[in-house]
């Protein structure tokens, strides 16, 4: 791939080569151990080849080798470690469907509160690191400060701050602390103003808009063809949210809007749209939390099921909306105490596959912006 450049009056031709630039797996902005092979012509990116697998931990094989279904949950935690609650929730719902049981009302409400808190925590991390990818350091720490408050609530509830193992099959590992409702309400009240602050500092910053608007435009049809989900899909203007379109748990009881990218500062489906969808989803999650936390009924947090469940031979696919998109579990049960097969459809793995299509013709700095706007977690991409 050589391009010959002839200069008038200069008899030899100048040959320019494209350069292969290896970004990662140790790079500050690949959000983990992702390796990107960039083929660049100066600052312009001609092609991107993502290389994954550096964090492969054999989740699916582990799941088959556990002695019971319950033991898989800690491994679910470790997939998308930024949003462990949502991962557990998907797996728990899948197993409960296999068993055809209904969990107590109290459990459902607490699960929704936890999942939405986790969604905010995950989006805060995505937004904060995205600001850092663009070069703004301060929003990152503001986001972490607020994420810390959510982690404190989780820590009080289940003792863990990152990998909770809290949502169990048929219930929860244990009940929430007595002042849980007040703590969550306090968080909601304190968090709303900081979203406004974040918008002033980062979202509507002229330089930030210059860097993200019209960059990495993903048209809706391309997004659908690639199977994108979550904020990446909604950023392209497609109103698709499994909490609304394929309701699970008790999401059909709450009022919330589904924010989509509108192309307010650029084209629909650019990096800014994917970013703003996350900001607005945090506001919607707050609405859900406030509705749910106000009406947590009293009751038990464990269904009466045996410790080692033994579902009948069957297979099913259960999908839930995690902060990153559609997380699907395809479980084959063979009548024993452990699953025969657990196949995961991770949202960021699918979303990451769009990166080359979005990055061609962009600049090196844009690739960072596009990658950040996809919001990948390598634990989930590689499993």
């Amino acid at each position, binding site marked *: 791939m050589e391009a010959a450049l002839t200069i008038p009056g200069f008899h030899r031709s100048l040959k320019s080569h494209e*350069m292969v*630039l*290896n970004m990662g797996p140790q*790079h*500050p*902005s690949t959000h983990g151990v992702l390796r990107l092979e960039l083929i660049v012509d100066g*600052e312009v990116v001609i092609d991107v080849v993502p290389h994954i697998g550096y964090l492969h931990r054999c989740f699916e094989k582990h799941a088959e080798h556990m002695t019971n279904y319950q033991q898989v949950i800690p491994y679910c935690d470790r997939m998308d470690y930024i949003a462990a609650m949502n991962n557990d929730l998907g797996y728990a719902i899948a197993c409960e469907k296999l068993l055809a049981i209904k969990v107590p009302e109290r459990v459902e409400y607490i699960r929704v509160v936890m999942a939405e808190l986790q969604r905010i925590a995950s989006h805060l991390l995505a937004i904060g690191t995205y*600001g*850092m*990818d*663009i*070069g*703004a*350091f*301060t929003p990152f*720490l*503001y986001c972490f*400060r607020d994420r810390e408050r959510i982690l404190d609530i989780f820590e009080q509830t289940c003792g863990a701050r990152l990998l909770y193992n809290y949502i169990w099959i048929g219930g929860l590992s244990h009940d929430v602390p007595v002042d849980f409702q007040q703590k969550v309400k306090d968080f909601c009240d304190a968090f709303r103003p900081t979203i406004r602050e974040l918008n002033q*500092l*980062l979202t509507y*910053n002229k*330089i*930030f808009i*210059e*860097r993200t608007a019209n960059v990495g435009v993903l048209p809706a049809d391309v997004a659908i063809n690639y199977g994108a989900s979550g904020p990446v899909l909604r950023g392209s203007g497609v109103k698709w949210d499994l909490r609304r379109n394929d309701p699970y748990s008790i999401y059909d009881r709450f009022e919330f809007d589904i924010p989509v990218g509108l192309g307010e500062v650029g084209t629909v489906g650019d990096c800014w749209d994917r970013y703003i969808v996350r900001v607005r989803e945090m506001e919607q999650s707050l609405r859900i939390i406030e509705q749910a936390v106000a009406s947590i009924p009293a009751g038990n947090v464990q269904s009466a099921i045996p410790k080692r469940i033994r579902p009948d031979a069957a297979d099913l696919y259960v999908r839930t909306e995690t902060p990153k998109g559609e997380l699907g579990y395809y479980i084959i049960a063979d009548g024993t105490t452990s699953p025969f097969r657990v196949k995961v459809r991770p949202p960021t793995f699918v979303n990451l596959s769009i990166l080359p299509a979005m990055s061609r013709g962009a*600049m*090196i*700095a*844009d690739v*960072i912006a596009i990658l950040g706007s996809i919001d990948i977690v390598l634990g989930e991409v590689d499993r």
Partner: protein
Amino acid sequence: MKETLIDLLGNEALVYSLMAVVPLLWILPFALFAVWWERKIAAHMQDRLGPMRTGGWHGWAQTIADILKLMQKEDIIPSSADARLFTLAPFVVFIGAYAAYAAIPFSAAYVGAEIHIGVFYIIAVSSFVVIGLLMAGWSSNNKWSLFGAMRSAAQVVSYEIPIALTLLAVVMIVGSFDLQEINKAQSGTILDWFVFQKFPFLFIAALIYFVASLAEVNRTPFDIPEAESELVAGYHTEYGGMKFALFFLSEYANMFAVSVIAATVFFGGWNSPFGDFMSGPLWGAFWLLVKGLAFVFVQIWLRWTLPRLRVDQLMYVGWKVLIPFSFAVIICVGFWVLLEG
């Protein structure tokens, strides 16, 4: 001051070396202080405390500890690097940053080198830095370093033009390249400073100078040559130990240099803002340092507030915004000076 010292010591060479060491005596403690200061400012802007332990009171000794650590590090030269250029580059960068201090009048009584082309000298010598950056980037034999070096070359060369043009506007009014003359022309109160003269043209010039100087010293939002989220660390990716410390030192030396030049040319230099009150040779040094530190503070403030521009946007700002405006300023000021006679 030079004459008095020569009379006193009787040795001209000794006096010249003494005079040359004075800026270094300022830069080294300043860099130590500024790094700590930047970390504290950043921390307080970000709702945290920053260094609190080392040295007791608010971690004041943190940078000293950092420097001691950097000194103890093994001096690594990558095997595929061009060892000679690789070793030379940090010194070239530091010399470029340090040499600018020679012509800066720290007070009415002290200027390292009394040359009549001070402005010209500073513009010339500060572009020396870019050679060092290119050397560092090229000799490291690392693609990220190369990208950083190429970006910084393009950036520094582009932004030198608006800097030179805005400084020329003041030179036209004073009719001299001598920075002491420029200072003397601003004596009086705060309203006699050039930033408030020929309103609003010199005000715009000061603004353009400040923005361009941010790019000149690779500070946010123009920190593209070392953009850590894109280029890992840009031209100094492969550097460690004291060589890295020299790059760091020259960055802070440069920050202060462009700040005192802004203070000298547009903000009265060593003149007191209150006319004769608190003025004199020692007060002069005090005022210049205060003004310089104020601009350094603004640079730090911007760094922890703004995101980073992309490399093509940087070129756009330089060539299509700052340079046309500085041309307009220079033409308007030129006509103003001409019409006033």
